[in-house]
């Protein structure tokens, strides 16, 4: 670049519009399937019903923020059990490591919501405005009636998809059938409308206009992937040792030798990121594999073997250049590194499942009252107070019986009643003040601290839980 020092060059290029061409092939079909399944899961999940009894919601997947409950089919998680969600997030992270080290940016290319929705928006665009060439012509021409009609139709359909996307999101946070009616009758909470509005706007703008710029500028993952990939990671690559020197037309007839690439630009035309895969691995590539489909189609037509653009690894590139055979795919995938990730991922998963099944339906935490640590009653009895938090995670009202075990002769009492059992409503937490008392003159009354175990027992199911705590005497 010959810089003109008096007039600085433009440093911030405007976005080059991209018009991905329609393509057909194995990977394209696979991506359609993935789009159908992921969008289906997203839009339909809130409508699945799951009977939990009269006191609990019957939505299979529900994040009940107001009551701090998370329901997932037969699993119910309370807010204090959020570590299950943390565990799932760690598994998601390790899963991403595993897939990236084995298959590169397979998440970006197939499953990322940005990719899936952009793919859907491009489908709509192609359906309304035509394929690549028609869209380029339309983009270049001035706005006339036809262009306005096509543009407005496209934006309207995009907006409808965006509203449906934002709308589906809020159904995860409230009873979906009720909320659907409320949304249309203006009865829903402001936060529901705000969430729908924000997600509608982001879907519309990210899927319709920003597209690849989200991946290139906003998303950190393309930058991290460089650290996650190695020379045995399978990724999309162009076999330049087979394709080069590229040429076409008369020039091709004139040059000898020439490679398999006929420079038809099919791979560039279909690329949703607007790059040329033949430039080698680059940060913008999301490995969606559409260029493989495009190139294979051309190779079939000109009678050359498929795979000029193909899934392959950096290690294989070196071997193939040297005329050796590439390593089979399973050897790329099953390596010490991927085995380590799998073991870690499965280990956390097994721990979470075990944790889920050994959970008790009743729980108790005890907080001793420290202000004051003890009081003396009129007959000299020393009393400690505790707030016990009793959780009834079942769908029925239950009576919880409190008792204690200790080496010392201590007595437990429930504040405000002569009974030792406390009713706890279904799916509720109850905080109950209890007292533990030591008779005057006993060891427990006169020593600083005595070990006590407080027990809670569900009189219906005989489930028990216990907490160890201390009894404070006078000294």
């Amino acid at each position, binding site marked *: *670049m010959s810089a003109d020092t008096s007039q600085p060059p433009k440093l911030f290029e405007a976005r080059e519009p991209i018009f991905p061409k329609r393509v057909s092939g194995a990977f394209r079909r696979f991506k359609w399937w993935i789009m159908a399944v992921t969008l289906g899961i997203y839009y339909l999940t809130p409508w699945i019903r799951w009977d939990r009894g009269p006191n609990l919601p019957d939505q299979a997947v529900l994040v009940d923020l107001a009551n701090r409950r998370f329901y997932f089919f037969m699993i119910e998680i309370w807010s204090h059990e959020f570590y299950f969600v943390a565990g799932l997030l760690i598994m998601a992270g390790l899963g991403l490591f595993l897939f990236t080290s084995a298959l590169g940016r397979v998440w970006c290319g197939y499953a990322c919501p940005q990719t899936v929705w952009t793919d859907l928006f491009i489908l709509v665009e192609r359906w309304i405005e035509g394929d690549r060439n028609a869209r380029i012509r339309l983009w270049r021409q001035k706005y006339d009636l036809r262009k306005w009609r096509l543009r407005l139709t496209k934006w309207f359909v995009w907006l409808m998809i965006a509203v449906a996307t934002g709308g589906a999101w809020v159904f995860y946070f409230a009873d979906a059938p009720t909320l659907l009616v409320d949304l249309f009758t203006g009865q829903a909470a402001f936060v529901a409308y705000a969430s729908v509005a924000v997600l509608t706007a982001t879907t519309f703008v990210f899927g319709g206009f920003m597209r690849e710029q989200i991946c290139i500028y906003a998303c950190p993952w393309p930058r991290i992937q460089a650290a996650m990939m190695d020379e045995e990671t399978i990724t999309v690559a162009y076999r330049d040792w087979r394709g080069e020197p590229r040429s076409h037309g008369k020039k091709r007839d004139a040059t000898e030798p020439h490679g398999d690439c006929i420079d038809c630009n099919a791979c560039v035309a279909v690329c949703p990121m607007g790059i040329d895969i033949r430039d080698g691995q680059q940060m913008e590539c999301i490995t969606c594999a559409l260029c493989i489909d495009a190139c294979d189609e051309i190779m079939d037509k000109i009678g050359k073997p498929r795979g000029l653009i193909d899934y392959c690894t950096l290690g294989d590139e070196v071997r193939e250049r040297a005329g050796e055979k590439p390593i089979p795919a399973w050897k790329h995938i099953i390596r010490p590194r991927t085995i380590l990730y799998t073991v870690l991922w499965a280990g956390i998963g097994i721990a979470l499942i075990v944790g889920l099944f050994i959970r008790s339906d009743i729980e108790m935490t005890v907080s001793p009252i420290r202000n004051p640590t003890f009081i*003396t009653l009129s007959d000299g009895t020393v009393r400690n107070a505790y707030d016990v938090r009793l959780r009834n995670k079942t769908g029925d009202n239950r009576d919880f019986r409190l008792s204690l075990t200790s080496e010392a002769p201590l007595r437990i009492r429930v504040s405000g009643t002569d009974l030792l059992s406390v009713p706890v409503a279904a799916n509720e937490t109850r905080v109950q003040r209890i007292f533990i008392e030591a008779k005057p003159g006993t060891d427990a009354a006169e020593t600083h601290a005595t070990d006590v175990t407080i027990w809670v027992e569900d009189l219906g199911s005989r489930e028990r839980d216990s907490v160890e705590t201390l009894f404070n005497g006078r000294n």
Partner: protein
Amino acid sequence: MAKRDDDDYPTTGHEWDGIREYDKPMPRWWVWCFYATIVFAIGYTIAYPAWPGITGATQGVLGYSTRGAVAEDIARYEAQNAGLISQINETELSTILETPELLQFANAGGAAVFRNNCSQCHGAGAAGAMGYYPNLLDDDWLWGGEVEQIHQTIAHGIRWDEDWDTRLSMMPAFGVDGILNDAEIEAVADYVISLSSSPAAGTLGETLYLDNCAACHMDNGMGEVELGAPNLTDAIWLYGGDKASVVETITYSRAGVMPAWADRLSEAEVKQVAVYVHSLGGGQ
């Protein structure tokens, strides 16, 4: 993207150890965001209180004020609770204790009232302070531990002259007023301390006690709630149960004072805090 040869690029002229600073423009999106913040700021100062003047500040066209927002919040909560408050007002204290919904509401409200108005003397944990303020957690009550008695104490106070219904009683200062001499006070103190275990029958102390103290503290030392005369036989001594403390009590007398709260708190608040204190664990 084409490779740029940045060597020819204009610099600011600053140079440190051979490191030069490019004179590059701000990103366009950044500049636009900056302009947007300026526009927003102008709009904000029109909409909200902003520009200071001599005597005050501009009020903003939205008429917003933080005090007003707090007042609105308080009014909203009061409106929410109005039903329960009127129920508290209309319901007998003993009935409130048996109605779970009202009991829970009264305990929560009473705890808030207690923290604001009572904890300064009785402590946040209601344990009182030895020698000054009674412990409200135990089962010993100078003026009675029934919820109605607690309510009376809170509403009208103890020895609070401004309230005509206040609880009054006065222990004579036996030493200072010359009713008993030092030796007699010592004898009475010995007897009073013995009440907790085995009363020292037939002593000078017992005679003096029956003559001077039993009128209020009763013959058996059990005290009298109506007079605020403490039980001398139990293990709880507000002003200390050792001999020196008891001698001091008899010599100089003791008289704690508590303000009446009926004028300062609403009836519902007094009732709620009475229920709360009753439920602390010592209520009778």
